[in-house]
């Protein structure tokens, strides 16, 4: 169940977006996040929305998964919408109920901000839905490579991340086992007041940490014996390939940016 929570985010597929290089996807999303802020009128927001819909179509991700990704931010979305409705006091009053007034500009801003939220969440969701965590790590490593010049341990960070990802299911299994073992000894993890439930987690965490440290030690030995000496002089088995898809999609983003600049006031 818990495994689904983390890995269920990635949906394998064979669409245009799936087959893009993780580097270009990352660049694309970062650039998109920036250009979203260029929009400031109806035409530009419409363009952003249309472009996002187009990307969704290209990724062949079912809308259900995207709506799912929206769940955690829906409250934030409604909250910001309400703030704009309540506190922007410009333009004509379009609705009045006692002292509660809705101004035209407020509604406008509220809708714009909601669209901005929506496209950002959709785009980042598409990134994580179409790219496996390990590919994202690979992409990040190559993109951050220039930062090695300022002594950022890029390779080590990427390796740490990939090992962490690789061990999540292993530790999940372990947690499950420990949980059952403690339950067999009569510990109740799901009942009682909050204080008791927090206390019940301690006998779960202690063995988990002990075993995680033991695993780390074993892994370090295994890595050393297999000749791991840091990133120097290492070759890569996972090769990233930049092809026409990546160039096309980045080019399309450039086109969208230009149109945005032209259309905005």
């Amino acid at each position, binding site marked *: 169940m818990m495994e689904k929570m983390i890995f269920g985010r990635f949906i394998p597929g064979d669409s245009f977006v799936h087959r893009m290089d993780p580097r270009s996807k990352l660049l694309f999303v970062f650039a998109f996040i920036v250009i979203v802020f260029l929009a400031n009128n109806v035409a530009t927001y419409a363009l952003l929305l249309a472009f996002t819909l187009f990307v969704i179509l290209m990724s062949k991700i079912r809308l259900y998964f995207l709506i799912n990704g929206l769940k955690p931010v829906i409250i934030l979305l409604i909250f910001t919408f309400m703030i704009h409705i309540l506190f922007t006091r410009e333009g004509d009053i379009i609705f009045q109920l006692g002292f509660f007034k809705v101004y035209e500009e407020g509604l406008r801003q509220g809708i714009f901000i909601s669209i901005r939220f929506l496209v950002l969440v959709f785009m980042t969701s598409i990134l994580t839905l179409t790219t496996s965590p*390990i590919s994202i790590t690979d992409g990040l490593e190559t993109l951050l490579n220039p930062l090695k010049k300022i002594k950022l341990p890029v390779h080590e960070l990427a390796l740490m991340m*990939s*090992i962490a*990802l*690789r061990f999540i*299911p*292993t530790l999940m*299994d372990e947690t499950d086992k420990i949980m059952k073992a403690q339950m067999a000894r009569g510990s109740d993890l799901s009942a009682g007041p909050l204080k008791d439930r927090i206390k019940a987690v301690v006998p779960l965490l202690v063995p988990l940490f002990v075993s995680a440290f*033991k*695993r780390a030690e*074993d*892994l370090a*030995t*295994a*890595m*050393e*014996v*297999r*000749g*791991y*000496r840091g990133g120097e*002089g*290492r*070759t*890569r*088995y*996972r*090769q990233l390939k930049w092809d026409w898809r990546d160039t096309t999609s980045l080019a399309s983003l450039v086109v969208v940016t230009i149109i945005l600049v032209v259309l905005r006031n």
Partner: protein
Amino acid sequence: MTEILSFNNVSYSYTPDNPNARKAVQNVSFSISEGEWIAIVGHNGSGKSTMVKLVSGLLFPQEGEVRVMRDVLTEENLWEIRSQIGMVFQNPDNQFVGATVQDDVAFALENSGVPYQEMVQRVHKSLAQVKMDNFLNHEPHHLSGGQKQRVAIAGALAMRPKILILDESTSMLDPQGRDEVLKTVRALREEIGLTVLSITHDVEEALYADRILFMNDGKKYAEGTPTEIFALGDKLVEFGLELPFAMRMTKLLQSKGVQLVGEHMTEEELVNDLWTSNFNK
């Protein structure tokens, strides 16, 4: 025969400042030639694990020397020698570095800077050798223990090692997984003449070896073929080792008055002797 690995009067103590403390390994000498399968057996604390650490250069002996391919193992040639040693450890999960099977097999190759094209070839070849070539993109948590250990063997093979060291590699597996791994190692020996050093307290595994080194209290207690070693019988039991199942069975049958002559190392020998035992009457 080319010598692959040797210990010459090797001693190691975890507390070198205390001369009275028992040494983990005491004055051990032995050598392995190309193509041999040697098993080191002994109960817990007999110095087996320390010997593995001495071979792989995680520890250096305080006395004596460890030679791999006739070169004395030192800090300087450590990494070069490690690339000639393939090791498979006890816990299948804790030695799986890569995100998928093929990534893991490629790990040691990446470390030593093998070019991409050659890496792909070697990964596929060594996975085929352990019959795991249909699992290229599997993630470790979808594999059984035996499969993970076979991937670990493939990872070692990809480096074309001179010697494969199995450090209690089968002790955490179910019987099926254990058979899987041992069958793989035996097939590899026939196929590519691999030299094997297996550290184990599983006597059935030790039976496959050409020679057994019996360790007790950090000292080499005995060395010989499986037949010679298990002829020690009760001596082994005294030191906390079990006898192979067939031998225990023979002893029990004899004590019940069944007429059985000689020792039986494997089940097959025992069964053959049992059904033929009345032929001459």
